């Protein structure tokens, strides 16, 4: 589904962020991307989402070489992803409902159908009652959940989350992790970057660790207890029904 072959990235006027990185992520996986601040986690996610081009090497998303895509095709590639940012990137000039409906507008979905899906997504993250609230009135955790609702409302196959729990306390972080796990359970590929162990749940299977421009792959806690695993979440299934 996602494949990096010998990908290097440097920004103009900076040192190489990473060099000759290769990995693949299959559909339905839950992958952590770890490393210290500045290790290039965000940059790697940007390469996947095609918001940054690789300096060399090839990035394949669903068998499409991103560097060879026409600029006009990139928006359609991006619609496969649900993007979640550490700073939420919510729009503070409109209420929660209007924030979440934006991807559906971009996809040209009719207003009626869109409203249904927005409410389903808000319900999924536990914000259904706040659809009329302005994002600024929400707590940090709620804002992050709103950002997740916006990311999943268009039913993307892949969720890319850049330190979604970075600014949250443990309780909120656990909430967010539970939501991600629920989506992963219904077949969504989740790629999540984090710089601390706090954000990780105990049932992870794969970790990509960036250090000094090199990528190391590890399997941690494999086969550990599944207690924290939210079992087949019916509302998540509902949301991702084809």
């Amino acid at each position: 589904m996602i494949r990096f072959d010998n990908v290097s990235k440097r920004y103009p006027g900076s040192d190489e962020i990473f060099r000759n990185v290769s990995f693949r992520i299959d559909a339905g996986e839950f992958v952590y991307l770890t490393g210290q601040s500045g290790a290039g986690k965000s940059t790697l996610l940007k390469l996947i989402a095609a918001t940054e081009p690789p300096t060399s090497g090839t990035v394949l998303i669903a068998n499409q070489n991103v560097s060879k895509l026409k600029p006009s095709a990139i928006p359609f590639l991006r619609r496969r992803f649900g993007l979640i940012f550490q700073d939420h990137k919510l729009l503070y000039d409109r209420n929660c409902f209007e924030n979440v409906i934006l991807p559906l507008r971009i996809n040209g979905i009719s207003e009626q159908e869109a409203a249904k899906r927005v409410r389903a997504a808000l319900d999924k993250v536990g914000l259904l009652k706040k659809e009329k609230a302005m994002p600024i009135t929400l707590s940090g955790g709620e804002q992050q959940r709103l950002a997740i609702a916006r990311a999943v409302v268009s039913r993307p196959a892949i969720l890319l989350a850049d330190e979604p729990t970075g600014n949250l306390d443990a309780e909120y972080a656990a909430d967010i992790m539970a939501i991600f796990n629920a989506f992963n359970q219904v077949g969504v590929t989740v790629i999540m970057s984090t710089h601390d162990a706090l954000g990780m749940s105990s049932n992870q299977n794969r970790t990509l660790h960036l250090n000094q421009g090199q990528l190391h792959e590890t399997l941690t806690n494999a086969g550990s207890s599944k207690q924290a695993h939210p079992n087949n979440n019916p509302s998540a299934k509902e949301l991702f029904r084809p």
Partner: protein
Amino acid sequence: MSNWLNHHLQAIKLVLFRMRNNALSTFMICLVIAVAMCLPSLFYMVVDNLSKLTDHMQSETEISLFLKQDAGKKTIAEINTVLAKNADIREYHLVTKDQAWKQLQEKSKNNQDISEAINQLGKNPLPDAFFIQAKSADPEALEALKDTLKDIPGVEQAILNADWAKRLAALLSIGKKLIFILAILFAIVLLIIIGNTVRMQILTQQDEIEVSYLIGATSSFIRIPFLYAGAIYGLFGGLLSILIMAGIIQTFNVSIMEISHLYNSDFSLQIFNIGLYLAITSAAVVIGWAGSYIAVSRAISTFRLN
């Protein structure tokens, strides 16, 4: 298709919603557009009405054809057939020297000096004359007709008393050129004003544009609301300028009609000039669209995700 329509409807709704939220600044921009549209349009109106007035007057200009003193009945009949065949002539009539003589005596009856002078002449000095009205009111066509008529055998002199009309027509054609230049200058001004307004809006919506790009918006999705905003500014501005113009014309018509009555005319400026109003509005819409297209294309080409 329904997606496409949906997208456009949503864009228009969004733009109208934003305009309503910033009603005052929207009104200000529309007012600027309206005033800028008004100036060349009013000037056009004045020149247009003046040229209609001169057309009206020129249609009353005559070519006077004076025959030689020795022209006999035969010559008059010959000239008559030539005139009858000429396709440029609307109508003509003959005033013989006797009729002219009688008219002159009739007219000068009340004026002692002139009638005495006429009586002293004793014999009729006046020639036979044809008075001709042409089909065309165009000064050049009249001039050409006069030249052909002058060359008919037996004609002493052809007089076209339209010099003043020619001068006025020349002035008006300068006026028309001036309108053209003025219209272009104001179009450039409008392009810049609307472009700048849209650029400011793009700056205030930078966040929305960034987020939209990140979740897969195409450039045309970003562009369309701004294009509608430009076009709607133009539309409202155009309509407002029609209102202003109608008000100005109404004010002027009161005094113009007073003057017209003094000259026994029913001339007044037209308030409902549908063609002109349609032209103003569509020009404003097109300029609005183009101005915002330039602004938004520049913004998109320099936009970078970070």
